[in-house]
């Protein structure tokens, strides 16, 4: 098995970019009202636990990807079929995220460009990078991580200097108790974006510095959670719960409010750059994991060959997943987390852990 040489720094960068990808744009956890940020906090705690689960299985089979140990644990046939389901899941997720970004660009700037053209441009770039290999993607990630942090910080400073942040908008905390917060955290913020780390179970065994992989993942996940919590807090404080919860992309509303001395204004590009970079990585990684999974299942030697057909599938699927934005969002926030994310991100991995644990017990006794 070939090893991908990427440093801890690069891994850290791509995990953060992956987590922030699409979650930064959509109003995450707004069903919890003013406590949306608390819902993300809870989601993060759940996500960390989940990462521990993935880490546990990974430590048992440090040289096998998800599709590999599925066959080892669940038996050859059942494991293979579940592996195939995961492959489809990754393709589907990549298509969904691609759609998110197509829609975002369409709404915010390219209002007459057909969606297929926007998505096509994105997928062509992504395929090119993936064709060059995962190391290229990782190096790009390392560089763009700096860009995203710089633009992010600039954006935050500008929002503060505009004097539009009013903490009163976020108070009272826990207005309606913990119940709505839990409801928003499980399943939504827990599975999206934190649970989506399941994609990395396909990547971990191929990385060359296995000892630090999990440590780096925990850290990267915590940083992305902090950024998400802060951004959500900022959205709520700047434009208020009402607009945050009603708008399609709350972050764009907040950044649109930036106005310093009537001179620095209309700086929407800040949010758009951040989002395009994040989206690029999210689609790329999901796309790549899908390719890896398929290559592993069907024993394809040269996985570069899979990039082109997969890109076409993802592109067409991204256009087909929903008829309109409303439908797309409803699926993403209501149907997908409960019926697709939960079983695949939590259910099956937990099952694997239990099976592995029992087997170990039986073997030692």
């Amino acid at each position: 098995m070939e090893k991908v040489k990427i440093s801890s720094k690069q891994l850290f960068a791509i995990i953060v970019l992956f987590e922030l990808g699409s979650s930064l744009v959509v109003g995450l956890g707004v069903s919890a009202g003013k406590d949306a940020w608390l819902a993300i906090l809870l989601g993060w705690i759940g996500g960390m636990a989940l990462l521990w689960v993935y880490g546990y299985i990974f430590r048992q089979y440090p040289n096998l990807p998800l599709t590999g140990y599925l066959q080892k644990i669940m038996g050859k046939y059942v494991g293979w079929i579940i592996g195939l389901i995961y492959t489809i899941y990754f393709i589907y997720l990549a298509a969904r995220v691609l759609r998110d970004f197509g829609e975002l660009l369409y709404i915010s700037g390219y209002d007459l460009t057909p969606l297929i053209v926007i998505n096509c441009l994105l997928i062509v770039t992504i395929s090119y990078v993936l064709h060059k290999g995962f190391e290229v993607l990782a190096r790009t990630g390392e560089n763009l991580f700096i860009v995203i942090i710089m633009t992010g910080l600039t954006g935050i400073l500008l929002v503060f200097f505009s004097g539009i942040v009013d903490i009163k908008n976020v108070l009272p905390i826990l207005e309606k108790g913990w119940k709505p917060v839990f409801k928003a955290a499980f399943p939504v913020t827990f599975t999206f974006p934190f649970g989506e780390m399941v994609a990395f179970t396909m990547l971990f065994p191929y990385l060359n510095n296995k000892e630090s992989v999990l440590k780096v993942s925990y850290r990267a996940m915590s940083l992305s959670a902090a950024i998400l919590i802060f951004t959500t807090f900022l959205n709520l404080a700047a434009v208020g719960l009402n607009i945050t919860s009603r708008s399609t992309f709350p972050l764009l509303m907040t950044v649109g409010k930036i106005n310093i001395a009537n001179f620095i204004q209309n700086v929407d590009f800040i949010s758009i750059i951040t989002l395009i970079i994040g989206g690029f990585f999210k689609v790329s990684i999901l796309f790549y994991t899908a390719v890896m999974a398929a290559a592993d299942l069907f024993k394809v030697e040269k996985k570069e060959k899979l990039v082109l057909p997969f890109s076409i599938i993802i592109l067409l699927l991204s256009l087909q997943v929903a008829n309109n934005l409303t439908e797309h969002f409803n699926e993403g926030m209501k149907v997908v987390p409960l019926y697709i994310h939960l079983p695949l991100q939590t259910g099956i991995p937990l099952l694997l852990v239990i099976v592995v644990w029992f087997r170990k017990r039986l073997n030692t006794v």
Partner: protein
Amino acid sequence: MKVRRCIVIFTVLLFVLTGCWNRRELSDLAIVSAFAVDKGTKENEYLVTFQIINPSENATGVASSGGKATPAFTVSETGTTIFEAIRKVSKKLSRQLFFAHIRLMVINEELAKEEGILELFDLFERSHEARLTSNVLIARGTDAKSIINMVTPLDNISGYVTVKKLEATEKVWSENIKVEVDDVINGIVSLGSSPVISGVRIDGDPKEGQKKSNLESTDVPAMLEISGIATFRGGKLVGWLDNGKAKGFMWVKNKMNSTIVRMDCKKKKGGVAIELTESKSSIKAEVHRKKTIFHVDIKEEGNVAEMNCPADLSKSEEIKKLEKSLAIETKKEVMSAINFAQKKKVDIFGFGEVINREDPKAWEKMKKNWNADFSKAEVKVKVEAYIRRPGMIMKPYIKEVPKLQD
């Protein structure tokens, strides 16, 4: 082989790199600086007027030599929605309207009174061109169209000028509040506070104001003046806050930047002018079973700006006296604003939101008939006023004027 490859790649690039999908050149855009909404002739119709910047008249250097046209002009069109009017205007205009630089929206007073403002702001949220940072004003005593029709001195484009005036007066006089579209929306949808919008009127003859000759006399025939704060209930204009009431409102709302407080001294009414430099207010709510009490605490600081009575400010008793009457004066204006709001049953201060923050459970029960409860609530105002320094002089010269004997 290589040459062939190159040709293929370049042909593909030729199609890909043609530029933007629906490009609009600058010369095809009409940049809108402000727009006004009046009632249309038919029922349910709005008359929307757009103020469009005349680019050649605003270029530096050219304007002074040419100067034939006005710096901005307006076009009107009717529609049941604003966007309909935007597109309909194309019949009259050689360029397409472009909204990214819009700064002001003016709403007709009659329209605000009779039909309300609830339905006017969707476009700002939905469109990616229009911004939530646009300012909103109510045209007072005239139609909204005339406001943006004005030709103004000092700065050219009346839409921008009006916003600048609003900002300037909010800063040094604090009788008006700068309200942006999202503030209005948040006010409209909130149960615990109602929106306010400042007013603008024409001081002079509106007909004169739209001509370029408005600029050709030193005593400008018509001027735009920011005036009053409009209050709304259920999206309909119910009354105006003016002068002291408007200031009182700003005090409670913690928006008081600086203003002049007029006070009496022994001999002369209104002989002392205190310049406020700082003011902070905090509102606390006390919910009892039968009654709600609000505590409004105001802390303010000021300097003596002008003093036309013989008081020696080097003595601290005199300063204490001034501080005391400053507090009384402030309280008077604050109470007038509160009385007005309670009489009209409009919670312009956001007292409801205070309860919501402090006692969410009580608010759950109260929010249904909050407007009625608000008018019955007791408001206790406490003002702490400090006068920090008397300026460059301690004793006013008035005190030194020798008494002439006939």
